[in-house]
């Protein structure tokens, strides 16, 4: 085992070349990519939104359809970045040997990780926008302020990119990502307020949920979609940014160890 190189990341503009590469590949695989990100949230929205919406009516003064749509948008941004950071990064690192090819050029590991992080966030926006569009067409969006959710999708993508890339850096195979998905992504999806307010959980559970990032993503996106006032926006943005920064630095350190050995 080589020792960890824990110097701070120093990416260069080549990071944008990595971003471009991924965007060009994304454009080629647009259909499957969107179907994967788009299908499940829209099914949830239609099935639960219409179905449960009939019984629930409003939650905290917001129609349930709108409540659910805003939660699903946040969860989509989380899922897109997480799956890109885990599966796609792992594929490029191992099976495709894309990074090996790139590391024979002046592009360096820090540029790759910065580019991948930016790409995860960009893809969160690109693949969540169609859901926002469908939600709008179905009448779930209450205000033009929903446009303000778009940069939040990017921030949520940044926040989940780093930890997912760290998982990829440690993964011996794709099966390893089951741990990450089952232990982190799925519990956050169920407990962080996508389907019901966090306040309904027991106090101890609320503490845990409020440490995890998805509840803060929802706390920003939901008022923007519903057209209600934001509460403590700087706190939520700050927590998401903190995850983004720590995750990005950790991703750089551990991908270095994986690639430069």
């Amino acid at each position, binding site marked *: 085992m080589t020792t960890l190189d824990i110097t701070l990341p120093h990416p260069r503009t080549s990071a944008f070349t990595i971003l471009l590469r991924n965007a*060009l590949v994304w454009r080629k695989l647009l259909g499957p990519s969107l179907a994967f990100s788009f299908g499940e949230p829209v099914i949830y929205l239609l099935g639960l939104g219409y179905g449960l919406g009939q019984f629930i009516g409003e939650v905290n003064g917001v129609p349930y359809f709108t409540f659910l749509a805003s939660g699903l948008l946040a969860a989509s941004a989380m899922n897109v970045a997480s799956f890109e950071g885990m599966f796609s990064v792992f594929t490029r690192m191992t099976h495709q040997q894309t990074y090996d090819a790139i590391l024979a*050029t002046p592009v360096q590991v820090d540029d790759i990780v910065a580019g991948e992080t930016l790409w995860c966030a960009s893809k969160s926006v690109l693949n969540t926008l169609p859901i926002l569009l469908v939600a709008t067409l179905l009448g779930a969006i209450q205000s033009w302020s929903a446009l303000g959710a778009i940069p939040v999708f990017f921030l949520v993508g940044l926040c989940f990119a780093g930890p997912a890339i760290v998982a990829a850096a440690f993964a011996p195979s794709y099966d390893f990502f089951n741990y990450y998905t089952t232990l982190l992504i799925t519990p956050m999806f169920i407990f962080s307020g996508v389907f019901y307010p966090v306040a309904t959980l027991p106090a101890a559970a609320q503490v845990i949920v409020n440490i995890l990032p998805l509840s803060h993503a929802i706390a920003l996106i939901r008022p923007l979609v519903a057209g209600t006032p934001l509460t403590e926006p700087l706190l939520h943005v700050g927590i998401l940014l903190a995850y983004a920064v720590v995750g990005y630095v950790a991703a750089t350190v551990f991908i270095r160890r994986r690639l*430069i050995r």
Partner: protein
Amino acid sequence: MSETAPDPVIVARGLTKHFGGRQAVRGIDLDVPRGGCFGFLGPNGAGKTTTLRMILGQSPLTAGTLTVLGLPVPAGIREIRARTGVVPQADNQDPDFTVVENLRMYARYFGLKPAQVADRIEELLGFLELGDRKDAKMRELSGGMKRRLSIARALINDPELIMLDEPTTGLDPQVRHLIWTRLRKLKAAGKTLLLTTHYMDEAERLCDQLVVIDRGKIITQGSPQGLIREHIEPHVIEVQGEGSTVLPVFDGMPGVRVLSVGETHYCYAQELSPVLARLETTPRLQYTHRVANLEDVFLKLTGHELRE
């Protein structure tokens, strides 16, 4: 031992790499002169690829010093890579891009925009006979085409130094000959080629200088013909048959050395006629006489476990 050209492309002193307890490279000294083809020969696992990775800054040195194109590793690695082309052992093109898209994207990693490399891409596709395949997807290419694309990609930045890691492994004879012809053209154009291979015929055809690496150490170096002269007797007679039948034939012959690999016995001799005279007197032995080649050197130096 080897003479150092005035402007060597690679200088290594005491180059060492350990992976945990495993010593992959154990103190290598190298002087790769500018121009021509320099070969790294050795069995699988000898440390060839690890050495290439160190030269590219993809593997930190455990000990020793390394200078490439006059720049220190790792401090100068970005400029070193900007002036180097790499043909990896396994093809690693982007599977989602076409041939020409792969080349364009790779150029961007060197900071070259598509417009700047449009002519160069046409030229490279012609050079490697891929002109009619420019819009093909990766899954439509044969192994030989992918390898040629790897070589084209390695040339996109017009490198001074080209590193090829087993460039013809797994390819059919036609493609191997095509690649050899192109590599000779690159040599003639003044490029420095660094080639790893375990094919002795490839090394003999292409390399001006080579080192034989085994178990992480250089065990000999020189030109292919020089090494053959240095290590191998002028005559090689290959005899087929059971050791118990064949080996007594050469008993008590001065200037004769026998190396047995299974049922094949390589008889290395200073003088040909005494050996042939003995063989003539022994009935039913199949033998062939040939000139010494690099494989003989390789077997002599690395084939320890096969020696009787």
